[in-house]
């Protein structure tokens, strides 16, 4: 592939620089090995299955899949949704990130929190909320329009490609905000000032200097958004199936109905893997040509833009957006959680706190599940971010032969629908004589596999912003590679790493597809508990539980941010 041969900015200087220290080799080797084990091993079982299993070798699954005429419709729908979600996420997420990071907009903390919350609302719940709002016959908005205008039918239809795209993008735009604002935080105002003094308007600076400088974060988040939307099942199924809009994930999931067709499902998933690889290739190709160092050897200044008269319009704009993306679904959730019976309207006799009591005190499952989730999500996020940082480091700084492969491997799981990955994981890990299957450890392994892409992509975009001489200064001072990494490189990447941590943590808290296959009695997660409740039709309790999870997660993220705040670069 050409992406590593193009002429390259300073990172290239280090390209052939071999690190001597044993500890470095050990740590990096272990990271690479861990990645291979985490990703390649389950992938091997999947691919093996798609090729006919251990005893026969055949491409029939692939032939079957590609010869199906319905595939192309689904593919096009999938691409439309993913592209649309990508566009919406960037168009809304980038301004929000910029406002949070580089302006004096009031209520930054709130905006950050809203962003995280938008990411936390489980897909099926937000889909449900929008059904209430925009269902063609009975959606509140439509009824409102009908009652006001007397039209026969309201204008909104959530059961449509635009509807699916919108709901999908609300769930993933946090990638853009979190990664981009982390990157923007470390941009030295000097580069903006040098453009201002040349007469560039703020808009021009934003478009020509600031945003291009955070290209790594933009591309990383765009990739995450795009690929994640490709593989998302929940909203596609709830909003697409009823009106016969099929996507690759819904098709793949339908292959799991009894008798399951693992081979075909995997073969079909390879399409998503291919798209993932393509996106990453594109991203690498773009990034390879330039340098995006924003944290240099000379300290700069960090100044926020004064929005002036635009301050309140900006605030209103943000909250208008979040009204759609957060206030509304959370409001629905809150109302539902306070009802005896959903659908009966919120009247006094339908109002109750019982649902909260039920999930908090009546079920030991909830408590156990909450603890399990905290443990697994916390460790997955921490390990995932560290592993991600190491992989990104190998790939971007050391560039040994084959590092590229690591980068691709570390991104592929993103493109696999949860259930497919779950199958691979079960097939892979159940065989081992070591007792991981049936313990929390298997969940941790699974989450690491599933979310290592978030860690790697966040770390990669953060690493690209740091001048390598900062690490070199640590090493010439006698710090081993490991210490320089721990005390200099990682702290400098902190913004990106915290973003990555939050992303993984939230995802892992809400993860279901894999957990549902891997949990056992005692190792339920909170998502499993929620799912169980909803399976059994207790939507009010589901809402209550979800509200509690939302609040708890938001608190944890807030705390994490506070603990790690002393912002990376002290300007």
């Amino acid at each position, binding site marked *: 592939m050409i992406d590593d041969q193009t002429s390259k900015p300073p990172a290239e200087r280090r390209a052939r620089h071999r690190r001597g220290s044993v500890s470095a080799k050990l740590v990096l080797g272990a990271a690479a090995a861990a990645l291979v084990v985490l990703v390649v091993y389950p992938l091997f079982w999947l691919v093996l299955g798609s090729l006919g299993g251990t005893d026969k070798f055949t491409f029939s699954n692939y032939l079957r899949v590609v010869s199906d005429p319905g595939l192309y419709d689904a593919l096009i729908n999938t691409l439309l949704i993913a592209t649309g979600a990508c566009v919406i996420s960037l168009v809304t997420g980038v301004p929000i990130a910029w406002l949070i990071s580089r302006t004096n907009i009031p209520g930054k903390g709130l905006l950050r929190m809203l962003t995280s919350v938008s990411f936390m609302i489980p897909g099926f719940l937000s889909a449900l909320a929008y059904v209430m709002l925009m269902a063609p016959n009975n959606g509140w908005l439509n009824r409102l329009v009908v009652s006001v205008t007397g039209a026969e039918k309201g204008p909104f239809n959530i059961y449509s490609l635009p509807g699916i795209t919108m709901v999908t993008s609300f769930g993933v735009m946090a990638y853009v905000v979190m990664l981009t604002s982390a990157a923007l935080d470390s941009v030295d105002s000097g580069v903006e000032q040098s453009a201002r003094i040349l007469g560039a308007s703020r808009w021009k600076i934003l478009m020509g200097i600031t945003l291009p400088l955070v290209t790594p974060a933009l591309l990383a988040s765009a990739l995450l958004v795009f690929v994640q939307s490709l593989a998302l099942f929940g909203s596609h199924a709830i909003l697409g199936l009823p009106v016969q809009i*099929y996507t690759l994930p819904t098709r793949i999931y339908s292959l799991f109905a009894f008798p399951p067709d693992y081979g075909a499902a995997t073969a079909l998933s390879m399409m998503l893997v291919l798209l993932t690889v393509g996106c990453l290739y594109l991203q690498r190709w773009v990034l390879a040509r330039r340098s995006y160092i924003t944290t240099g050897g000379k300290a700069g200044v960090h100044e926020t833009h004064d929005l002036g008269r635009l301050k309140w319009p900006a605030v209103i704009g943000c909250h208008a957006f979040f009204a759609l993306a957060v206030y509304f679904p959370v409001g629905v959730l809150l109302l539902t959680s306070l009802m*005896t019976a959903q659908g009966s309207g919120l009247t006094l006799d339908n109002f109750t706190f019982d649902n909260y009591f039920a999930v908090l005190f009546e079920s030991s499952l909830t408590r156990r599940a909450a603890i399990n989730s905290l443990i697994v999500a916390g460790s997955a996020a921490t390990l995932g971010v560290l592993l991600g940082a190491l992989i990104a480091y190998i790939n971007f700084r050391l560039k040994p032969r084959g590092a590229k492969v690591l980068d691709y491997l570390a991104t592929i799981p993103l493109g696999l629908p949860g259930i497919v990955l779950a199958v691979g994981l079960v097939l892979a890990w159940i065989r081992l004589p070591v007792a991981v299957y049936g313990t929390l450890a298997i969940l941790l392994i699974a989450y690491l596999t599933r979310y290592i892409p978030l860690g790697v992509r966040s770390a990669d975009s953060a690493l690209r912003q740091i001048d390598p001489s900062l690490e070199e200064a640590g090493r010439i001072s006698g710090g081993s590679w490991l210490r320089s990494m721990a005390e200099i490189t990682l702290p400098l990447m902190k913004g990106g790493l915290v973003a990555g941590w939050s992303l993984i943590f939230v995802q892992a808290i809400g993860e279901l597809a894999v957990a549902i296959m891997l949990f056992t*009695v005692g190792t339920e997660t909170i998502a499993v508990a929620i799912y169980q409740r909803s399976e059994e039709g207790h939507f009010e309790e589901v809402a209550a539980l979800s509200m509690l999870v939302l609040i708890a997660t938001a608190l944890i993220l807030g705390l994490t941010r506070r603990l790690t705040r002393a912002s990376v670069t002290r300007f």
Partner: protein
Amino acid sequence: STPDGPDGPSASITEITDQATLDTLVEAAHEEGRVVWYTSVPSERAQQIADMFTKEYDIEVVVQRSGGNDILQRYLLEKEAKRVQNDVLTISDPAAFINLQKENDLTCFKPRNFADVPTYAKDAGGCWISTRTNAMVMAYNTEQVTEPPAGWGDIVNPRFSGDLAYVDPNFSSGSLIVTAGLANDLGWEWFDKLKAEQPFIVKSNNQLMETVVLGERSVAAFVNSTYVAEAKAKGQPVEWVFPEDGVYLVAAPSAVVSGAPNPAAGKLLADFLLTEAVQQLMIEDGNYAAVDGMAPPEGQPAIEDMNVLDIDYNKIATDGESVRDQFNSLIGSAN
């Protein structure tokens, strides 16, 4: 944990004929010490049954509760990896059991109440036996529908155009059974008419109830009556219709799987599931009992009083795929 393993004295027990066999089984089960139950019975109920079993026999029950598809998926993967973890499997997909039996994945065993289970709801050799029965009924939103549909023939009527919701047989085994039954009894023409009504195809019974409760679509073409019972209990504006032209009853079987780590305890649990005490719990949840002679769930007609339509599970087990394909090509679903 299998002191006598598949070859032990309990392995030979294929039927509880007398107290002696029961005692042998109980003793073997005691040695195994526990039993693992994969089930789609709602978790609180499942746990209650488990506790009752433990109280009765002093044997620990590990309940792994999940949605029917998920729990089946899990069993299949474990089987595929030759690491079967569970002893008993309970889901509401008789066709799946028939297929499992074909692959010799089930251990045949006749519990004490075997004879009380209707023939259509069990394998003659006892390889799988229904432990509860679900009635597939129609449901509608009482605030929106004044004239509810009477039955299958009535529902595909322009009067319900744009009002119908239907569960996708690609995702739900229950729907596959009903779809196959309808195709068999009323012919695919019925689906042509259905299509003309622009049905809303949802993924699960849950979503179906949501749709009707919230009033986005006012009529559910069919739904497991337990869901309706629960919604009614909560005071939601729904009501059921037991179709005049026939009700489909779907058996939810249990079976002891081959290679179960605790076969004796598994059999003992399978036996226990058909006891009156357990069956009574099923009825409380809005299910019909699997064994004859018990009262219907509250508010629902007795089986004897309805027009029950026969379903050929064997046919569905072999032709399920083609039923789905046919449905998809008509309604335009996945595949």
